[in-house]
């Protein structure tokens, strides 16, 4: 015998049996079918907002189209209506002057109860509510129609559920692929700043955050050392430790001390970056301008990404530390000869290419051997450290100092002619002469450190690196010949270099 209900259900099932991208697409397909089937004037779909006990209108369908609509209905004020809807899954509205019914759309998965073989529903979730209206001809809904509508509502709920799952799966897949790509870029680079910008921009783009910030802290996680921020327009800003606000500094403790970093109502999340016991920094993602909540699944993905990121940053930091150790002298914290020579070659090339000047200064601590012999190597080392400290603090950012060997130091002064280099030499002379050896080691005697400096300038004094070194050394030789504690520029003393021999 022909069963009309089953046939309608089958047809409806067939119509909805396709891959919908999202809930909207599914509703745009399902609501017109119901409208035609039951000759409705209007049909609405409401989301069930459990936490606010509100039916929130999402879509309306009338005539030949569907449309987004907004309307909130509280079900608290209507206990009888609510009770019947929950109990029977369908209820007729009594407030309207025309026939209208509400149908609960709920997703449920039946489970078999072993005791007595009774089937019970364990998992069920209210997905939404359909409101069907007939206001033109005031034709009431028959019991058969109501039964069929409920069955079709059930079908919609399953499709909605599947669409949501598909959508979430696709979204996860896209995000995982994106994060994987980004992680690969980052993991393959050992330099800290390489790719960080790109990665944060990528995260902002894929997750559509308003802002993404990365704070790098010291390894104890006490202070922020630098921050990288991608703002709502996608622009990146770098800030150093002294540019970080106190409010942001205060976040460090909060992030590392907090056990939970996720709350579903939040539009901001912080994820600490840690590698074993070492603290690397933290990531901050926010939607405070758009006020969109950050989903739990996004949070989980970001957490996984953050652990990879922490590891990569830590590796890069270790690499930087190794580089620093190999490029800098441990005692004086000045660059070593090899590093200096590389920089000098680069600068000489630049000076040739752009017709710039460059000066080179060689510094010798006067009577350094006597200091070592008279007061011990400890004081000698102290003197070297003090002189280096003064040099480091007296130079411009572009100048490059170097411990060349023993008590000899060299300074490269880019874009500096001989007159300008004399100003720097004078400044160094004054500041270093002010250094007094600790009197408890000199028997109370006030012994000042003094230095001799020889300067040569490219291209006026020399046309190559080797020649530049040679001319600066000759100038130093003249200073030493003339009693030390002074400085000389090669071109001014060139006629006094007889007897000079490179040792």
């Amino acid at each position: 015998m022909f069963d009309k209900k089953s046939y309608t259900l089958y047809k409806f099932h067939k119509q909805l049996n396709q891959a919908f991208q999202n809930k909207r697409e599914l509703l745009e397909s399902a609501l017109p079918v119901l409208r035609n089937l039951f000759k409705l004037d209007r049909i609405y779909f409401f989301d069930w907002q459990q936490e606010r006990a509100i039916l929130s209108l999402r879509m309306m369908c009338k005539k030949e189209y569907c449309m987004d609509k907004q309307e909130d209905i509280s079900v608290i004020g209507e206990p009888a209506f609510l009770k019947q809807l929950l109990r029977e899954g369908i209820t007729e509205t009594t407030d309207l002057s025309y026939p209208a019914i509400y149908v609960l759309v709920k997703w449920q998965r039946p489970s078999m109860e072993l005791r007595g073989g009774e089937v019970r529903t364990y998992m069920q979730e209210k997905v939404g509510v359909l409101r069907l209206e007939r206001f033109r001809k005031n034709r009431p809904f028959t019991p058969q129609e109501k039964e069929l509508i409920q069955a079709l509502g059930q079908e919609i709920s399953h499709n909605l559920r599947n669409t949501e799952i598909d959508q979430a799966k696709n979204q996860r897949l896209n995000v995982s692929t994106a994060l994987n790509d980004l992680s690969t870029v980052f993991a393959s680079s050992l330099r800290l700043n390489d790719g960080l910008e790109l990665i944060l921009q990528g995260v902002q783009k894929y997750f559509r955050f308003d802002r993404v910030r990365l704070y790098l802290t010291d390894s104890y996680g006490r202070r922020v050392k630098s921050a990288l921020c991608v703002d709502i327009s996608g622009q990146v800003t770098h800030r150093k430790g002294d540019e970080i606000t106190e409010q942001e500094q205060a976040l460090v403790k909060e992030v590392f001390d907090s056990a939970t970093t996720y709350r579903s109502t939040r539009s901001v999340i912080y994820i600490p970056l840690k590698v074993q016991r070492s603290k690397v920094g933290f990531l901050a993602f926010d939607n405070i301008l758009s006020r969109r909540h950050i989903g739990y699944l996004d949070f989980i993905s970001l957490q996984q990404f953050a652990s990879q990121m922490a590891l990569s940053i830590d590796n890069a930091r270790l690499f930087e530390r190794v580089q620093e150790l190999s490029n800098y002298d441990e005692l004086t914290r000045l660059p070593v000869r090899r590093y200096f020579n590389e920089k000098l070659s680069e600068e000489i090339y630049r000076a040739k290419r752009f017709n710039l000047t460059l000066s080179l200064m060689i510094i010798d601590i006067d009577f350094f051997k006597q200091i070592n012999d008279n007061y011990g190597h400890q004081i000698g080392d102290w003197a070297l450290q003090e002189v280096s400290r003064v040099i480091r603090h007296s130079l411009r950012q572009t100048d490059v100092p170097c411990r060349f060997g023993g008590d000899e130091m060299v300074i490269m002064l880019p874009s500096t002619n001989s007159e300008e280099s004399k100003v720097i030499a004078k400044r160094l002379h004054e500041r270093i002469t002010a250094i007094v050896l600790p009197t408890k080691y000199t028997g109370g005697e006030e012994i000042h450190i003094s230095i001799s400096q020889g300067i040569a300038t490219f291209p006026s004094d020399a046309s190559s690196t080797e020649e530049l070194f040679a001319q600066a050394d000759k100038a130093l030789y003249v200073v030493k010949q003339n009693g030390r504690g002074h400085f000389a520029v090669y071109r001014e003393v060139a006629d006094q270099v007889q007897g000079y021999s490179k040792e």
Partner: protein
Amino acid sequence: MIVWVMPDAGDKSKETYNAFLSLFRKENPQINVSMRVFTRNVLWRRMFTIKNPTHEEEVPDVIQIPHYWTALLVREGVAENLSQLDPGLSLTSCVKALKNHCYKPGTKDIYSYPWWFDISALHYREDHLKLVTNHPEKDLSTWEGFLKICAALRERFQNVPGYYPVQNSDWRGSLSMRSALPCVWGRGVDLLTADFKRTSVATKAFKEGIRDYINLALENYMPILRERGSLGTMVSGQASLMISRKQGVGTFDARRGIPVRTLPVPSTGDTRAAYLSGMNLFVNVRSQHKKEALSFIKFCARPEVQAYLARTLEVFPAFEDAVELFVLSSPSKRLRAYENILPLAKTLPNLTITGTIMEILKRILAVCATQIVEGRFTQASLDRELDLAAKEIEYLLSIYEG
């Protein structure tokens, strides 16, 4: 070309906009134009995602926005610089209050173009009011008087089933910040201080202004969170007053024998203000049809098109000449009342964070509405929410407007 609009004509939005688009198509048959209707909520969320659409998401070309979103979209880099697209584009005849909301703040570069605006006013049924007062204009000039009239009306119509003195004009049937603003302004405060450096949301005056508006729901003068189809309207005789931004000429004048009059919104304090809400159009920076989009925007700005849309949506044209033409040429006497209301126009500032502030306050009012319905609303909880909101706004100011 895809145009995204809001449901400004309620259930008839699609029909209304389709008819409007057919006018454009007639003149520009070579441009293939389609339209999608989204609620303000959906559009707000989309404004933050259209910059990076996924494969499945469509890329709109022209989008309708509340005028105070312009600064945000410029900041995001979502809106196209219309001045660059057409250096001849001008705002000379645009309604003064709408002009600043078209520019990138601090420049004269046009990033969104005015489309239409509406302004809040109080509509009342003359026949109903006659039953409770002889001086409706005087009694309805203050909020106190307005509430007294509400009480009297409820008493007078207690036997009418489903009667509420005030019809809720909010489309969601909830409490609306846009309706609350005139009450706040009436108390002499605004969302932000005059220099836009601080917020006034936590001030006593602001809280009182919000409370003035909420009183309508608390006293049960206005229904909230109810089935809208079940509620009576001024037309059906189950309501007598309505504070609405739509002038309702089409709705009220279509029913003969229902005398509706229009007045400025009652003042809650010393200041009288009417909320002016502008709607602008902008071109998506990712659009592949920018020239077509621009021609659509220019089409929308033509006086006859402006007048047509104003009539069908029951709003006002955004250009001075069209406003005059529209108000003066209208057979509706009630429309003339707007000559007294328009000078009271006040609007929200064109700042990056204005939309967010409205979202924050909207959420607070949504919580209030639920609490009122559940009978657990307290002034203390509202004050606490507003204090927290103020902190949030101050933080936003420090990030985006500092």
